[in-house]
Structures are given as structure tokens and as C-alpha cells.
């Protein structure tokens, strides 16, 4: 292929391949200029803090800006800090309650929407509605719903002579109550993902199972569910990662109480940083959080393997 052919073929089509004369190779700075604004933002506000978090966690950085290198002291301190143990336990307990709750709720509503054609768009909208609001709004509404004196839930329970139950002031009910609030706020997202997954299950599989005499439950259990596995897994991981980062709802609804029974890891991080100004220690908590999220993602990679 000669140079003349190359330039002539310039307009002609794919046969010409890479056209050095006009191709992007000629002016590499153009590409760099286009990435530049985002690149600067990333270097400053994503990479620098990510590296900074690691180094800060090895120091006793205080609000004055003074710091000493203290190696792994923050981490050994975490290991023996009861507040950290409690916060970790609260976060895990919350995750164990929240994830099955929200996944079952999303799966249930997705299956219902998939089965019932009647007003599907309308119902989908209703279930999705809480998702576009903030978790702060959800927390404010539900705090009132749970109120022992004149809350909505206790008023309803009062009609059947139950309660009043002070949902947010008892260590046994506070985490489930917050989990219900978060699930209400967020299930619309996973529902949409699962609904798309359900709609992607080939009709022919279900028909074949029906001809073989499989009932509704059997078709769901042995055809739909296995087909849905990757999507279900994605939802499970997303919700688990989200649950480990819980903070807003607890900050608004309980302030971490009663007696730290809703005091999560991120709450602990927030307090360490912005109440006690113990920035190095707070960064170490952040790194623990990062490791947990990383492990959850890696486990997902492992389990789902290549069908992702």
C-alpha cells in the first residue's frame, strides 16, 4: 500500500485501515487535552485522597496539622478498641438483616410485576418512587412512623391493642427498624435490575418446563432462578457493599443509640474524624472499610466466575 493510495482511500472506507496522515496518532496532545480537566480532578480528588488515606492511617495527624509517623499503631489500637468491635458487630448485624430483607423485597416485587401485566408501568413507578428521594428524607419520615407516642405504626398497632413499642429506643428493635427504612428507600433499584433479569429468561425454557409438567413453583425454582443467578448475585453484592457503608439513616434516626446499638463503622469513622479530630485513626477505619468492600467484590468475582 503506497502513500497515495492511502490518502485517496482516506474517505473511501474501512479498507484503508489506520490513516497516518489524518489519524489520531498525529496529534496525541489533542486526546490529552480532552482528558485533562477530568484527569486533574481525578488526580487531585480521587488518587491523592486514596494514597493519602493510606499514609494518614500510619500517622497521628491532628487538626493542628502536626503529625508523627506511628507505623501501625492506629491499627493495633483498632484491634483493642471496644468501640470499634461494637461498630463492626453493629455493621455486620445490620448487613445480615438488611441484605436478605431488601433482596427478598426486590425479588418479590419484581416477580409480581413480571407476572401481572395489569398496570405494570404504574406499579413499577410506585415501587421506584422512594428510590429517587434521599435517605435523610426516608429517615425523617420513618423516625416519626416509629415514634412511641404518636407515630403512625404505633397508632395502627394500638388499634389491635399492641404496644406502644419504642422501636428506635430498644437495642433489639433498632437495627431491624433502620433496615426496614433503608429497604423501603432502596428496593426499587434492585427490583428494576431483577425485573430486567426476569424478562431476559427465554420463554422457550419456561414453555418446555411447562410441557414437562412443571408447576409454577417448580418452573420458578428450576428454570427462572438458575437463569437469574448472575443478576441476583450482582444485586446481592451491590446491596452488601451499600449496607457496610450505612451511616445517614443512623445519624438522623438514632444518633447511633441507644448506647451505640446502631453505631456503624462509618459513624465511628465520622465521629473519630469530625468529633474527636483524630484524622489518622479515622483514616485507618476507612482503610478497614475499603478492605471489607474489596473482599466482598473479590468473593463475587470468584463465585460468579466468567458468566459476568
Amino acid at each position, binding site marked *: 500500500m503506497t502513500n497515495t493510495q492511502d490518502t485517496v482511500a*482516506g*474517505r473511501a*472506507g474501512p479498507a484503508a485501515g489506520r490513516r497516518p496522515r*489524518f*489519524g*489520531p496518532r498525529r496529534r*496525541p496532545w*489533542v*486526546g*490529552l*487535552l*480532552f*482528558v485533562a480537566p*477530568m484527569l486533574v*480532578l*481525578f488526580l*487531585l*480528588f480521587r*488518587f*491523592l*485522597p*486514596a494514597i*493519602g*488515606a493510606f499514609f*494518614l492511617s500510619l500517622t497521628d495527624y491532628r487538626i493542628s496539622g502536626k503529625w508523627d509517623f506511628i507505623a501501625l499503631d492506629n491499627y493495633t489500637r483498632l484491634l483493642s478498641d471496644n468501640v470499634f468491635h461494637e461498630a463492626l458487630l453493629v455493621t455486620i448485624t445490620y448487613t445480615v438483616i438488611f441484605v436478605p430483607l431488601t433482596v427478598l423485597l426486590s425479588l418479590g*416485587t419484581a416477580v*409480581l*410485576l413480571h407476572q*401481572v401485566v395489569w398496570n405494570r408501568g404504574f*406499579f413499577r413507578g*410506585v*415501587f*421506584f*418512587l*422512594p428510590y*429517587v428521594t*434521599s435517605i*435523610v*428524607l426516608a429517615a*425523617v*419520615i420513618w423516625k*416519626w412512623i416509629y415514634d412511641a407516642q*404518636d407515630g*403512625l405504626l404505633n397508632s395502627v398497632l394500638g388499634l389491635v391493642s399492641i404496644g406502644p413499642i419504642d422501636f428506635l429506643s430498644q437495642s433489639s428493635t433498632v437495627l431491624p427498624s433502620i433496615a426496614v427504612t433503608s429497604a423501603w428507600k432502596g428496593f426499587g*433499584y434492585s427490583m428494576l435490575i431483577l425485573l430486567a433479569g426476569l424478562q431476559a429468561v427465554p420463554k422457550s425454557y419456561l414453555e418446555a418446563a411447562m410441557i414437562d*409438567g412443571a408447576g409454577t413453583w417448580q418452573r420458578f425454582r428450576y428454570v427462572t432462578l438458575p437463569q437469574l443467578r448472575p443478576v441476583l448475585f450482582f444485586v446481592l453484592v451491590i446491596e452488601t457493599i451499600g449496607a457496610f457503608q450505612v*451511616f*445517614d439513616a443512623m*445519624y438522623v434516626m438514632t444518633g447511633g443509640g441507644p448506647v451505640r446499638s446502631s453505631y456503624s463503622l*462509618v459513624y465511628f469513622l*465520622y465521629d473519630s*474524624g*469530625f468529633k474527636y479530630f483524630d484524622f489518622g485513626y*479515622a*483514616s485507618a477505619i*476507612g482503610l478497614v*472499610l*475499603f478492605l471489607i*468492600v*474489596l473482599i466482598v467484590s473479590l468473593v463475587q468475582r470468584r463465585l460468579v466466575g466468567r458468566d459476568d
Partner: protein
Amino acid sequence: MAQVLDRPPVRPVVEAPAAGRRTAGRLTLPTLLTLTAIVTIVPFAAMVLVAFAPPSGQTFPGALNPANFTLENFSKVLSSSDIPRWTVNSLLYSLVSVALVLLFASMAGYAFAKKKFPGREIMFWAFLATLMVPFQATLIPSYILVAKLDWVDSYWGLIVPTLANSQAVFLMRQFILQLPDELFEAAEIDGAPEWRIFTMIVLPLVRPVLATLGIFVFLWHWNDFLWPLVIGQSGKMQTLTVGLATLQGQAVPINQLMAGATITVVPSLLVFGLLQRYLTDSIAMSGLKA
């Protein structure tokens, strides 16, 4: 297997009970669906009812008679709190971020998809890798950085650090990757300046993604809590979400609190009402999370 092969002749007999069950299902499933929908909507309905209820009637199941509805709670909460200022802050935080994220992300997405430059692959994967780091894990260093820049309690500190949005870059790159190279090369041959190619060819072509992404970025910022909480330290710099949490902590009467809550949710509802299809379709397709 043999049984299955035998089946076709007796099919109507086998189908009959199944059909009966399905009619029953047709009735119970919609009922279940309707009940779930009612439970989902009740907290919103209660919020709005309490917001409009007369303060004297207090709360549920007290005076929820529509004849007594009043705007008193709204005027009281508006005058006793900084809600107008918080609304301006929230709007600035959301709208400026939407505009800048869309611009910078489509520029970067275009370069990653269609331009060759040194370090392109590494940069792109590094962008993606930051998706793995939870925002809270870098909260402290981000705050220290903003403090060093003297941006705490300012719009700069609120907005600029949140513009580094890797999901947006990723989405734009994936979309632009599908556009045929010839479009851009033809313009290059005609001698169009790079910036004109971007504004006249790239931007119009990516309009559908811009719309979807714009909605999501708006909701991310409008509903964001932790970053505005940390950065907006004076009352004047709080956003609506932080302000609402502040109101909640100040033991404001419940009617006024719900009036405030109703105000904060209006923009989200507008976005939802106008663009619901866009939102739901794009989540189903790309898994974007607001």
C-alpha cells in the same frame, strides 16, 4: 420421559386445573401487588397529610380532615429555618455539578474512546479502579485537602471534589466507542478544529446518554448527605438534606418538620414524574446506581 411423550392427546385434561389455578392467580397476584404498592406509598402520603394538617390537630389519626388543610406549617417552617437558602445551595450543588460532570465526562469519554494518546489504557483503568474505593474511605484525606485549599464551607469545596465521577466517564466512553470512526475522521479531513468536532458532532450524538447521566448526577447530588454535612459547616452552607437533618435534631413540631420534608422532595418528584421512563430503562440496561 415416556409420560411426556404420551401427553399430547390428554392435554386439555391436564391443562384444565392449571388454567383454573391461573385464574385464581390472576386475582390474588394483582391484589398482592396493590397491597404492596399501598404500603410503599403510605409513608409519603402520611408525610404530605401531616404537612397540611392543622398544627392544633397534631398527628395521626387526629385532624386529617381535608377541610382543615392549611399552609400554616409551610409558612412557619420557611420563616423559622433557612430552607430558602438551603434550597439555593442544593440547586447550585446539583445543577453546577450536572453541567460540569456532563461536559468533562463527555470530553474524557470521547478521548478515551476515539483518541490515541500516551498512557490512555493505564489512565482509563486507573479511573475504573477508583470505583472500588468507597467514598467514605477517603473522606478524611479529601476533607484535609479541601481544608488546605481553604475551601471548607464554600461552594468550591462542596462542588469541585465531587466532579471526579468515574461512572460518568465510563458510561460516556462505552457509548462513544460504538459511534463509527468515519464520522470524526471525515470532519478531521475537512479540517474542522478539534473543539468544533466535539461540539458539533460528538455532543449531539451523545445526547441520549447526557440526558440519562444528567438525571443521575442530579439525584446523586440532590440526595447527597455525608459530603455536604462535612463541608457545609455553617448554617448558610448547608444543603437541604443536611438542613432537614438539622431540623429533625432541633425538635421542630412534627407538622413543620413534615412540611420541610415535603419541600425537599419536590425536585426529586419532578425529575421522577417527567423522566421516570428514562430512569427506569437506563437502570435496567446499565445498572447505574443513583
